[in-house]
């Protein structure tokens, strides 16, 4: 048991936190629940992105496209008379289909070229969504009246967040997760060992985009109004990427920590009139600092500090035997 806890130091805290989230509607007021909803929303986005960006190392800057697809599917179908809950599987399916359409050409690109292409894809989707008739153009769309129910939406979002984190954690130690890890370390080496890299990337992209689209659908149901400026915004793509990077790419805890940090920052920043205009500075500054000093993010920093402490405590001989 102790061994198990030593290997998963974040598990008890995570379980306690999850229990707290599920009990929140009984224990706290509406304001706190709104903040927690926001937090869960970001946890879904960050953890799902991490599956492709962190595990497989394919940094995509176009994820707002999937939030948008989810949100628009839900609003358009609800306006056509569907129950909003029934639109969830449709929006996930559409996002998965789109992820394959985008992934097939772009996954032939490597590293930064893939990243730049995803900026292009995200921008093209936004430009087209603002120009089309049935999406309401740049003025956006409204959900039909009477579809708003915060309580059930809150539970749905929290459950989605918990499921996402559990799924990602489970995938990481599965053979599929290991093949993604191999792709990140050395794509040619992974291919040589029999990993079908394009297929693995497409699967990771599909899973994560489906989860992100579900979050987008719940976003639309909670805010009742969407526009290309809110769900296809480049800044949203940016936030999705920043959370796992600051927390620690490729880890389970990192994106969650990043999401908690960012939703906290966002709440604080929006509340203060002087800081509201400086969020880009804070985001950009964080990105520069993380990339220069600790590309492993918060988790990387924590591990580095722990290693320093361990090395100080263990005598050199013991360390030598440990290493061998």
């Amino acid at each position, binding site marked *: 048991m102790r061994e198990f806890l030593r290997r998963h130091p974040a598990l008890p805290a995570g379980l306690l936190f999850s229990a707290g989230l599920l009990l929140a509607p009984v224990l706290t007021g509406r304001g706190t629940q709104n903040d927690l909803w926001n937090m869960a929303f970001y946890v879904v986005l960050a953890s799902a992105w991490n599956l492709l960006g962190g595990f497989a190392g394919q940094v995509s800057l176009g994820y707002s496209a999937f939030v948008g697809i989810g949100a628009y599917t839900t609003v358009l179908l609800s306006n056509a008379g569907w129950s909003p809950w029934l639109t969830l599987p449709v929006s996930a399916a559409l996002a998965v289909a789109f992820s394959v359409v985008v992934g097939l050409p772009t996954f032939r690109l490597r*590293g*930064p070229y893939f990243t730049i292409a995803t900026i292009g894809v995200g921008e*093209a989707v936004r*430009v087209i969504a603002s120009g089309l008739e049935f999406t309401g153009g740049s003025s956006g769309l409204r959900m039909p009246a009477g579809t708003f129910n915060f309580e059930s939406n809150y539970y749905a979002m929290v459950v989605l967040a918990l499921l996402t984190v559990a799924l990602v954690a489970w995938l990481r130690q599965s053979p599929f997760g290991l093949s993604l890890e191999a792709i990140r370390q050395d794509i040619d080496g992974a291919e040589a060992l029999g990993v079908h890299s394009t297929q693995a990337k497409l699967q990771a992209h599909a899973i994560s985009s489906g989860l992100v689209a579900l979050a987008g659908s719940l976003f639309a149901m909670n805010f009742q109004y969407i526009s290309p400026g809110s769900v296809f915004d480049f800044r949203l793509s940016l936030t999705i990427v920043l959370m796992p990077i600051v927390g620690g790419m490729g880890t389970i805890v990192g994106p969650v920590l990043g999401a908690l940090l960012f939703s906290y920052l966002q709440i604080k920043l929006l509340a203060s009139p002087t800081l509201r205009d400086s969020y880009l500075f804070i985001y*950009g*500054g*964080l*990105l520069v600092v993380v990339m220069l000093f600790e*590309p492993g993010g918060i988790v990387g920093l924590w591990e580095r500090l722990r290693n320093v402490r361990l090395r100080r405590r263990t005598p050199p001989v013991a360390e030598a035997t440990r290493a061998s």
Partner: protein
Amino acid sequence: MQKLVVVALNSLLTAGLYATMSYGLAVIYGVMRIINLAHAGLMMLAAYATFALNDRFALDPFLSLLVVAPAFFLLGMALYATVIRWLPRSSAGPSMQSLLLLFGLWLVLQNLAYAIWGGDTQSILTPYTMSSVEFFGGRFGVPQILVFAVSILSLVGLNVVLRRTYLGKAIRAVTQNRDAAMLSGVNAGWIAAVAFGIGTAFAAMGGSMLSTLYAFTPDFGRSFLLKAFCIIVLGGMESFTGVAVGALVLSFIENFASAYTSIPVSFQDAISFTLLVVVLVAAPGGLPGLWRMLDRRAVAR
């Protein structure tokens, strides 16, 4: 026929500007193998600098280039010395780390502009902004023609520097083979600093000239960054001629698509984004790579 000539001339005028704004990206990629995402932020900042000079001192936007370009050259060198230099160097290709770092820099620059000038849309009005001249049966805006002239001048000047001076030869040497250049006594670190300065100065010239044609906000520059990237990919990433050819190809495709097809104006930016993805996927070597491939096939046959 007459429409064809007018559209072609329009494309040519746009291509000059496109080449200037893309060249900065290409020189930095060539020498350092990094993709400068902060390029967009630097263009935006230069647009605001031009705006400020015009607003405060009534300086003509084209004359202000004489102030803005050297200032941004120094800014680029300073950025190199403080931030870029500390990135781990990768010989294989641009690293994710450098891309994300420069992305962060872009955000910081954007916020700087928000803090100083606010988020309102700004534009520069000069006495000749609205005037135009007529030839070949088409009307061409005076700013557009001036932009083209300045672009050509700056590109010719740059070409002379690259071909005739030690500095230019050193830059080209490091672009072709960094290790060999260092073995022949080129100070690659210094060349990288100068190249980053030149790249920044060209971003600034592009931004200043864009500000005479378009309105801008601190969010300005993203679509132009993607266009510039599309151009240098088309041009094969590092050669000077490649950038010019890429700029011509993109501006011809854009102008002809909007003149002869029913693609609405609001989708015009989507053309370059799509072209970017298509080129990256189908011809990663750009037009030179495509040309070499076809050439080899012809020889083999």
